[in-house]
């Protein structure tokens, strides 16, 4: 009898996934987004195996092959010290994604926790304390903060992530806060309170699952912004330090070689555009699923 139940459960879960896929497929751009993101993640993970010249990611200097235009040997050309740009872009994906994941791992738990508590205790001193603190952090412009932090600590990816996270968590806090405070008055939450469920249960088991959909959409749409933020930091020299390949760094270094050696600028910039677009399209797709079905 129990095995039958488990089978039923699996079948239902599978049905749910199929339903979500159907609504996802309704807009072909969503699939483009999904495919692009998969591709980027795949490339980032298997970078050393895919890149044609993996040594370009390190301090290789090869002046005999410097500043070559795109050719069959170097599909995106080489930079001023002879490193293959395509390989550097492939490794650059790694830094960008790494940045995004670390920032999310820090900001998400903090933001959601603060938002849940503040939203549930809305219009009490807890709410005021937490949200005004959030407002303070929200007022810090990420880029300026990053500069301040990085000037104190050693510049690098770690400091950049730390700096951005200081302001980034507030975004998830706001989102969680608004959803939580509106859900708080729904009858199913009231029911849980009347039944006597503990506050922890209500926050984590009753309210949080309803947030996951909007959070997922927001995160996906945010990836693009985070990556641009990271690239901007690198652009001004505060992100990844050479020789670590980073898309922002590459764009910044290449700017002075425009318009003659255009490939040094164009391809990394294009790579940034592709990542951001991919995540945006995927995020839109998630929003479609969320809209059509009323649960995650």
């Amino acid at each position: 009898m129990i095995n039958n139940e488990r089978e039923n459960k699996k079948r239902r879960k599978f049905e749910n996934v199929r339903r979500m896929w159907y609504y996802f497929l309704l807009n072909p751009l969503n699939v483009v987004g999904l495919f692009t993101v998969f591709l980027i993640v795949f490339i980032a993970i298997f970078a050393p195996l895919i890149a044609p010249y993996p040594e370009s990611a390190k301090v290789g200097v090869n002046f005999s092959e410097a500043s070559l235009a795109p050719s069959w040997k170097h599909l995106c050309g080489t930079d001023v010290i002879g490193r293959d740009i395509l390989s550097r872009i492939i490794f650059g994906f790694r830094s960008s994604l790494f940045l995004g994941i670390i920032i999310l791992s820090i900001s998400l738990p903090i933001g959601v926790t603060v938002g849940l508590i503040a939203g549930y205790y809305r219009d009490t001193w807890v709410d005021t304390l937490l949200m005004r603190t959030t407002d303070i952090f929200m007022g810090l412009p990420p880029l300026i903060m990053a500069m301040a932090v990085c000037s104190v600590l050693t510049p690098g990816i770690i400091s950049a992530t730390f700096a951005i996270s200081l302001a980034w968590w507030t975004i998830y806090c706001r989102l969680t806060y608004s959803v939580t405070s509106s859900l708080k008055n729904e009858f199913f939450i009231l029911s849980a309170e009347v039944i006597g469920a503990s506050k922890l249960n209500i926050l984590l088991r009753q309210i949080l699952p309803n947030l996951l959909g909007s959070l997922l959409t927001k995160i996906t749409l945010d990836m693009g912004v985070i990556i641009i933020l990271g690239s901007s930091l690198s652009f001004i020299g505060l992100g990844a330090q050479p020789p670590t390949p980073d898309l922002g760094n590459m764009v910044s270094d290449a700017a002075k070689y425009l318009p003659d050696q255009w490939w040094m600028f164009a391809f990394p910039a294009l790579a940034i555009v592709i990542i951001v677009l991919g995540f945006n399209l995927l995020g839109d797709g998630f929003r479609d699923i969320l809209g059509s079905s009323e649960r995650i």
Partner: protein
Amino acid sequence: MIKLQKEILTVKNLKKYFFTKQGTVKAIDGINFSMNIGDTLGLVGESGSGKSTVAYTIMAIYSPTEGEILYKGENYLNKEKRKQSFKFKKELQIVFQDPGSSLNPSHTIQEILELPIKVHKIAKNKEERLKKVKELLEMVQLPQGYLYKYPSMIGTGEKQMISIARALAVNPSFIALDEPTSALDVSIQAKIIRMLMDFQKDFNLSYLFITHDLSLMRNVANRVAIMYLGKICEIAIIEEFFKNPLHPYTKMLLSSIPVLNEEEESLKPEKIISKGEIPSPVNTPTGCGFHTRCPKKMDICNQKDPKMVEVGKGHFVRCHLFSQFQSKNIKNTDKKVMIIN
């Protein structure tokens, strides 16, 4: 001290005010009533009457501004005794008005029904819990396959049946039903009402049945109280109420009921055509709250608020038209006990 209590709920001079920026909303403004075990008290009123607030205050969702509520003689809203009030969460349950938002959309029916069982540790282990959940589904005549469904996959009537099953999971003695069938079609309403009546007999439940549908009330309740702007206008046992309605608002409500045939039409009292808007509870009219719409308004009506008087056995009205009856404390001879101000 063992007191053989037939009384399950006593509400004494209950007031609930909400203090907002626009003014004080006097949702409940001094009401008194009591219920015996096995009673169904119908609470009727329109928007702004405070009827839902009464239910929420009884369920401890709101705490009273003034007055007290006793459950089987005990004041369970006492905030100091935290542990004690948890015990009462098993005794009193509520079914809400909107079936759509009464169930957590991200949970399966099984998880929804398991919650009260888990919280009150009614079952010892996972298997027993599942068994109890299946029993509950059977009680409300829903198929076992519903365990794995999400609320968005089932109909509105079925959602309400799940809410009722959830309320019954903890074996309560008192259930507040806040317009349980207002959002449903007549055919489903009939099914659910029958089910509720059966449960009442089987489990000896007491219901506080809130609705605006007097025809429904006629077939469900054994006593009725009419509320307007936070106060009770009239309260009586059901036969007396329909035979001899006294308060002008009661008559207006009864006149507005849409009925299907001549027989019912003849049962309606003197026709009072509904006119005027319901005042906002932030700016309650002075004196008797109903005077702005009352066809029988006298001069005294906008100056003094009338007091509740007894006009017949168990029949109480709050209206200046009946001021000749003396208000007094009554101990009724047969099982009903009422305390009036």
